[in-house]
């Protein structure tokens, strides 16, 4: 495995040094990109590098650097990788350029749903979508005669059966790590119940029946989870799956391929991807996209080159070569079993993550405040009221709520 990786990396670096590689044109303008660092971005930036004169920064802390780097004149990076949430600060600061003219010139192969439009102007090009959806151990559920869980009641019933049968101690996994992950779990549940986060003037509106319902579902799940759930992030849940310790989890589509990675996984071919469990209104998940933006602080000539390089990065060749790395938005993408969960969730009516300035604060307040409910330090109503109070303090400081 390691030797193979090293050889691969060697081969990659040789491939990226020359401009002779698989790129339709030879890039003369020096370009840089800053994006998150997961598998799909690695594939895309490697493909961009084939055009030459390009260097990529794959950085997990990119969201702290991006607003400042794009505000500089000239911008420190020409190409940025964003998701629907991290697009917000760039949009607010006006540091990314509309792409309509470039799309018209070079974007014939783009699908219409790749164009992220804000007020009619194309501000970003999406390359992939991501969502949390149900993954379950086909073999374990089938053996106990359990149907595919459709709602969280089904999930809990299945978990009870698995535990009773003594197959596993903790049948459910979940990305419940305090902070961003836990906040996201609540947002999934709450959107599944059809709740909305804000009232007029950015005031919070989560302290209601739907909020309590979401909390109670989360707590019910923790009874079937490894007691250390408050430190379990996506990678930890993925490993629990791979080692056969859990039977069900609502996990990111971008982690699906890892279940069938023979070098790491003991459950190859045994994990089925299904739609996220239904709440009373919609599937309890949110849909995210990742894509590229171009900085406004650069010359039109640079923007031209940057756009062409970016398109090369997400072209059909790259997608076919890395088909399972993500749910790509591309005509060349063949949606296999691994994408079935994300697709089914979307078909079931899952909503997009409601990214905005206030939502950023709400997500943080949720992430920090929910643990008190799960550990039993507060009841549901107090927890939600305290989260709202926390949100209001932060939103006032940010200027989003007038005093």
């Amino acid at each position, binding site marked *: 495995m390691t030797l193979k990786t090293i050889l691969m990396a060697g081969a990659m670096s040789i491939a990226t040094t020359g401009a002779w590689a698989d790129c339709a044109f030879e890039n003369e303008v020096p370009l840089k990109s800053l994006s998150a660092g997961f598998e799909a971005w690695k594939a895309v930036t490697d493909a961009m590098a084939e055009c030459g004169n390009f260097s990529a920064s794959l950085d997990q802390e990119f969201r702290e650097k991006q607003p400042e780097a794009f505000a500089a004149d000239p911008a420190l990076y020409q190409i940025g990788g964003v998701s629907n949430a991290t697009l917000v*600060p760039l949009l607010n600061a006006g540091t990314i350029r509309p792409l309509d003219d470039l799309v018209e010139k070079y974007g014939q192969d783009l699908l219409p749903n790749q164009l992220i439009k804000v007020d009619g102007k194309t501000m970003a090009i999406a390359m992939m979508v991501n969502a949390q959806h149900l993954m379950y151990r086909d073999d374990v559920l089938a053996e106990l005669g359990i149907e595919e869980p459709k709602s969280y009641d089904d999930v809990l019933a299945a978990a009870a059966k698995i535990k009773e049968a003594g197959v596993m101690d903790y049948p459910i996994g979940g990305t419940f790590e305090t902070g961003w992950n836990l906040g996201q779990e609540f947002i999934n549940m709450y959107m599944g119940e059809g709740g909305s986060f804000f009232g007029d003037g950015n005031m919070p509106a989560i302290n209601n029946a739907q909020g309590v319902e979401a909390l109670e579902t989360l707590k019910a799940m923790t009874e079937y989870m490894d007691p250390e759930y408050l430190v379990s992030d996506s990678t930890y849940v993925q490993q629990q799956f791979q080692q056969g310790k859990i039977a069900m989890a609502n996990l990111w589509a971008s982690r699906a391929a890892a279940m069938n990675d023979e070098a790491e996984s003991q459950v190859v071919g045994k994990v089925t991807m299904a739609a996220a469990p239904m709440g009373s209104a919609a599937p309890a998940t949110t849909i995210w996209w990742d894509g590229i933006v171009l900085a406004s602080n650069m010359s039109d000539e640079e923007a031209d080159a940057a756009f062409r390089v970016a398109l090369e990065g997400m072209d059909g060749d790259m997608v076919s070569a890395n088909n399972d790395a993500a749910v790509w938005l591309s005509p060349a993408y063949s949606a296999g079993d691994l994408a079935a969960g994300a697709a089914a969730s*979307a078909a079931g009516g899952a909503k997009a993550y409601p990214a905005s300035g*206030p939502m950023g604060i709400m997500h943080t307040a949720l992430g920090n405040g929910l643990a008190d409910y799960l*550990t039993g330090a507060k009841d549901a109503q107090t927890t939600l009221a305290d989260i709202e109070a926390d949100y209001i303090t932060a939103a006032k*400081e*940010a200027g989003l709520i007038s005093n």
Partner: protein
Amino acid sequence: MNSRTFAAFVGPSVFMMLLFIAFPLVSVFKQSFYVTQPIYETVEKETCTPGFLTQTCVTEQVSQPKLDEHGEIITQTQYVGLQSYRNVLEPERAWRAISDGSWHVLSTINFWKALRFTLTFTLITLPLVVGCGLGIAILINNAARAIRGPVIFVSLLPFIITPVIGVLAINWLFRGDGILTAMMEWWLNRDIALFAQAWTIEVLMMLYRVWHVAPFAAIIFYAGLQTVNQDSLESAVIDGATRWQRLKYIVIPHLMPLIIFVAMIHLMDSYRVFEEIVGFSSQGYVISLQWLTFDYLTPDQAGNRSISRASANSMLTMIGVVILLILPLRRTWRDHKGGH
């Protein structure tokens, strides 16, 4: 030394201290009384995001910062007095909890929760660090000359490890079915989850800190042990003093200034406990004051951060350190005056 030479020697270091310590401090102090925020306007916006086959477009009211003619966000800074301190301390909520006699409620308010852990952590590790440090120093001092070098090296190792790495190592050893947890489970024959409740995490953090800092204390005490008056020790032996009595009446009084020094350094360091929280990702159960500052400063995904509250919290942290240091400092001051 004439005053000119003195100034030439001291000048650069005073300048550096002003630049890197005094100036940032003053700036943080000032920021804790002001709030800087963009001016928002509410606009109706249509946003389209990709579905699988079609796009979903929504039109909604969004708050958007106003930009000036250069395309920069317009911000306003206003004096808010002690508001940021109030936001951090939440005095009304805290007072209500105290007057209800509900310790439990008080410990769910961020600042007080953090203060509780920070103080416990500092005050429990302090005697352990001094005690272990002294123990190791005496051990080294009594080791045969031939093996003294290797013993010093081995006992210094924990101090050399970068704190974050050390914490992560402990995390991996104990988390889930980590090697040491698995061993304990096998030995005690029961399921153990060390990261599932606050107190086990706190114990692990304190053990780690003592393991990490005791070598520093040890090396200082070891240096001190070299200067213990051998004549007094010998006469004590002749008078029939036991090992323990020699330690209590001769060695420890001799080392007292060093013990105070180590205690002060440790108080300052451990009051700023941070790596343990991040490395254990323990914020669901346990947080510290320094971590709270970090959390306020970290921008969320929409780019908001709470700089004023972060400033206020770090000023409060500093005040806490000063209060803790008053006792040992007073003692040093008395000794100093008495010595002249």
